């Protein structure tokens, strides 16, 4: 949140569209942008939960309205961004928090793969719990 004073930093002159110049820069911005779609989804979800204060029917009616093409497109976009966040997050976790077994460091792609497996298993558990416990 707080960086050193602006006058003390070296700022190379860069055009506002620098991130469109290279594939890796673009993917970096896409990764950062994924957080916007994740937050938007959560706001919609919270709005849906809020409908429950008006009773179960209001809640169900709200959920039905999300079946419109516009909302489906939004959720497809949100899901793609969210999956991109998950994968890039697991990749960076493997770099930031390397795991050692004895003296040897576990290869990064193995750490990423383990995270992906945990992610899929957790998602299945949540799905099954929801199906079993929902009203």
């Amino acid at each position, binding site marked *: *949140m*707080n*960086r050193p004073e*602006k006058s003390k930093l070296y700022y190379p002159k*860069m*055009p*506002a569209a*620098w*991130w469109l110049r290279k594939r890796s820069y673009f993917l970096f*911005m896409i990764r*950062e*942008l994924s*957080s*916007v779609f*994740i*937050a938007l*989804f*959560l*706001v919609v*979800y*919270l709005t*849906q*939960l*809020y*409908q*429950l*204060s008006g009773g*179960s029917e209001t*809640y*169900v009616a709200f*959920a*039905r*309205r*999300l*079946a419109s093409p516009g*909302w*489906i497109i*939004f*959720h497809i976009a*949100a*899901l793609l961004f*969210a*999956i991109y*966040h*998950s994968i890039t*997050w*697991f990749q960076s976790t493997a770099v930031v928090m390397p795991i050692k077994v004895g003296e040897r460091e576990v290869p990064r792609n193995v750490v990423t793969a383990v995270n992906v497996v*945990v*992610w899929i298993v*957790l*998602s299945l558990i*949540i*799905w099954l719990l*929801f*199906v079993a*416990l*929902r*009203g």
Partner: protein
Amino acid sequence: MKGKNIEPLWWGLFSAGGVIAAFLVPVHIILFGFAVPLGWISDTGALYRNWLVKLYLFVLIALPLYHWAHRFYFSLNDMRLGLPQRPLAILCYGAAVLGTILTAWVLLRI
């Protein structure tokens, strides 16, 4: 406390939010963006009256907001749009704090 001392707090919330978003958000998008609206699974919302579920939802919704605030603030800075840093930071992190309060309020109401 000086402003700069709480930077690790924001970073910790960003990191925790990133973990929650990575592991838990995609399946919720599939459930509530597709499965429930399209009628694959029916849901009356009765589950959300459970306190453990409420606690889970609070973590699920609130933490990724700090993840958003952090990334959005820094990417707007990196985009060099010439936006003033301090008001932008207050706006981003403030929105996350507001979102946290709103989430708690909604979960207590339902």
